[in-house]
C-alpha cells in the first residue's frame, strides 16, 4: 500500500509493537494460559502497562491478579490446537450483516467514483468473507482433531460423552449458520458487479457446499463415536451393577434355563468332544510313516535304581496284607515241620493237611505257597524233601498240566 494514510501507518506501527509484546512475554503469557493468572514476578511495571494497553491481559477486579483476555486465550488455543479450550464461533448472522453493510458502502463509493475508497471496501469485504470461511475451517478442523483423538484431551468416559454431546451441538449450530447464507439474497445484493459476484456468489457457494459436506461427515462420525461411548458406559455399568447385586445377594439363584422347553441360546453350550485318533496298521501305505515314527521315539532309559529309591513302596504296603502273608507262611512252615515229625515215610498231601487243620486258606493259594516255600529253601535243605505234584492234563486235546495237589515226603537219607 504505497498510498497508506497517516491513520493506517500509525495502526501498522502500533500493531507491530503489540504483536512483538506477545513474543517478548511468551513464557509469562503461556503460564497465564495454563494457570489462572499471569505471573507478575518477571514483568516490569512498564511491560505490564503495555500488555494491559494492548488488551493482551486484563485485571478483572482491582484486588485480583492479571489474566489473559479471552481473545488471546482463543488465539493460543487455536494456534496450539488445544481442543479442551478451543472455541467454535458459529455466529454467521453477524458476519452476514457485516457483508451487507460493506456491500452497501462499496456501492456508494462506486457510485461516487471514489475508487480508492472502493478498493478499501473491497479489501475489507474479501477479509470478511475469508473470516467467515476461516471460522468454518477452524471449527471443522477442531472437530476432526477431537474425533481423531477419540476426545483424548479428557480422560474419563463420562467427560468424553459430554464433550461429544457438546461437539454435536456445535455441528448443529454451524449447520444452522450455513442455512442463514441465502444465495438468492446475495445474488440480488451483488447485482451486475462481476467482482462481487465472483466473491459473494460463485466462490462462496463452492466453499459453503464444502463446509456442508465436511460437517455432515463430522456429524455422522460423532454419532457413531457416541454410540461406542454409550456402549462402553453400558458395559461398565452392567458389570458394576451385577457385581454389587451378587455381592449383596450371596444366595441368589436364577431359574434353571436348561430345563426350559426352549433353552436360551446363550445357555446351550454342547459338551466338549475330543476327536481322538490312534495308530492303525490296517493300511499298508501308512506303514512307512508309522515305522519312521517308531524309529524316532527316544529309547526309554531307565536309570539303575538304588534300593532306597524303592523303599517307600514297600513301606506303603498294606499292613493287613503283610500280616496275612506272614500267617500263610507260618502255616506252610508248620506243614513242613509236620512232615519232618511224621513217623511214616509216605508222602503227605498238602490239601489233606489243610483240611485236617481247618486252616481256611483257599486251596490254590495254599498250594502255591507250599511250592514257593520248597523253591525258597537252600539247595541243601531242598534235598531233604521230595515234592510230588499231582498233575493232570487240562483237557483231552490240551496239554497244559494242571496241579491238583502236591504231596511232601522226606527224602530217604543217603
Amino acid at each position, binding site marked *: 500500500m504505497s498510498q497508506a494514510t497517516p491513520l493506517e501507518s500509525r495502526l501498522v506501527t502500533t500493531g507491530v509493537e503489540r504483536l512483538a509484546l506477545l513474543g517478548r512475554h511468551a513464557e509469562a503469557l503461556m503460564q497465564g494460559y495454563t494457570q489462572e493468572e499471569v505471573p507478575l514476578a518477571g514483568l516490569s511495571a512498564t511491560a505490564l502497562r503495555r500488555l494491559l494497553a494492548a488488551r493482551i491481559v486484563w485485571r478483572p477486579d482491582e484486588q485480583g491478579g492479571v489474566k489473559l483476555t479471552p481473545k488471546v486465550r482463543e488465539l493460543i488455543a487455536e494456534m496450539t490446537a488445544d481442543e479442551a479450550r478451543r472455541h467454535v464461533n458459529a455466529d454467521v448472522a453477524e458476519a452476514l450483516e457485516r457483508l451487507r453493510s460493506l456491500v452497501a458502502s462499496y456501492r456508494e463509493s462506486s457510485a461516487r467514483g471514489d475508487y480508492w475508497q472502493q478498493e478499501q471496501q473491497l479489501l475489507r469485504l474479501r477479509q470478511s468473507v475469508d473470516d467467515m470461511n476461516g471460522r468454518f475451517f477452524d471449527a471443522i478442523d477442531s472437530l476432526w482433531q477431537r474425533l481423531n483423538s477419540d476426545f483424548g484431551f479428557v480422560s474419563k468416559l*463420562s467427560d468424553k460423552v459430554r464433550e461429544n454431546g457438546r461437539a454435536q451441538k456445535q455441528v448443529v449450530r454451524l449447520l444452522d449458520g450455513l442455512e442463514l447464507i441465502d444465495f438468492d439474497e446475495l445474488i440480488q445484493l451483488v447485482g451486475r458487479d462481476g467482482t462481487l459476484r465472483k466473491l459473494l456468489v460463485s466462490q462462496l457457494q463452492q466453499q459453503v457446499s464444502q463446509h456442508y459436506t465436511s460437517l455432515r461427515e463430522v456429524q455422522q462420525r460423532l454419532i457413531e463415536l457416541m454410540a461406542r461411548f454409550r456402549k462402553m458406559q*453400558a458395559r*461398565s455399568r452392567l*458389570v458394576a451393577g451385577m*457385581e454389587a447385586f451378587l455381592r449383596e445377594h450371596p444366595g441368589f439363584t436364577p431359574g434353571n434355563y436348561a430345563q426350559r422347553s426352549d433353552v*436360551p*441360546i446363550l445357555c446351550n453350550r454342547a459338551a*466338549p468332544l475330543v476327536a481322538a485318533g490312534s495308530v492303525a496298521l490296517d493300511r499298508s501305505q501308512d506303514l512307512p510313516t508309522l515305522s519312521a515314527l517308531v524309529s524316532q521315539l527316544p529309547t526309554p532309559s531307565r536309570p539303575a535304581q538304588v534300593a532306597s529309591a524303592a523303599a517307600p513302596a514297600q513301606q506303603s504296603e498294606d499292613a493287613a496284607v503283610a500280616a496275612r502273608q506272614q500267617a500263610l507262611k507260618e502255616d506252610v512252615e508248620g506243614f513242613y515241620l509236620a512232615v519232618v515229625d511224621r513217623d511214616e515215610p509216605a508222602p503227605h498231601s498238602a490239601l489233606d493237611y489243610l483240611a485236617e487243620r481247618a486252616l481256611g486258606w483257599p486251596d490254590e493259594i495254599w498250594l502255591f505257597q507250599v511250592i514257593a516255600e520248597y523253591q525258597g529253601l537252600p539247595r541243601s535243605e531242598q534235598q531233604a524233601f521230595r515234592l510230588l505234584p499231582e498233575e493232570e492234563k487240562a483237557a483231552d486235546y490240551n496239554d497244559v498240566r494242571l496241579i491238583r495237589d502236591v504231596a511232601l515226603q522226606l527224602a530217604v537219607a543217603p
Partner: protein
Amino acid sequence: MNDTESPLDQNMLLHGPLLERLLAGEFVCAVSDESAFQRLQDEALRDALDTYLRPLNRRLASNAEQSVYFLAWRQLDDSAREQLSRQLGDALNSLLPLLEWLQLVQEALGRDSVLTPGDVLKPGELQAKSEDNPSLRERIERLATDSFFGSQSDQLDAQIKQVFKRLKEHGYLLQPHGERQVYLATGKVDYLLDLVRFIRDEERLPVTEESDAQETLL
C-alpha cells in the same frame, strides 16, 4: 484324493482345524482365530458346518452380536439338559469372581471401559499398579484365593500369575506368544457379559445400564 469328492467335502477339509476347535468346546472370535472368524461371516459356510455337525447332535451358535461362535446341542435330550444344568451352575459360581476381576482391571489400569475383545493386558502392569496400593493388593489377594482362581500363594506375583492362568484356561484371555507375558482379551468376555445381561433381564434384577438413570442419581 479321488475325483468323486464333492465340493462340499473339499470345503470341509479346509475347515478341519476350525471344526476340531469348536468340537473341543472352544469359543471362536476375531481375536482367537481371525481367519476362521472371517470365514464364519459367510452364511453358506455356517449352513455347511451345521449340516456336517448334525450327526454329532451339534450346531453352530453365536451371541446376538455374532462376535463369538460356539457349538450348541441340536436336540436337547435328558443327558444334554443335565450337562447344561451343571454347566450353568458352574457359570453362576464363576460369575462373581469374573465380574470382580473385570472391575478390578478396569479400575487398576484406569481404563475407560470394561475389558473388550482385543484389549491387551500385562500381568506386570497390574502388579506394578498394585504394589503401592494396599487396597488393590487386598482385592487381588481375595480374588486370587477364591475357589474359581484357586491360588495357594501369599505372594502378589504368584497370585496374579494364577489368575491369568485360570482366565487363559477358561478362554477369556489368550497368550499369543507363550514366552511373553502379554495377554489379549477374547470374545468370550462378550459372551460373559451377554450372559449377565440375559440373567438380569430374565430375573428382572435391579441392575441398570442406562446412563440417564445413573446421571440423575449423581
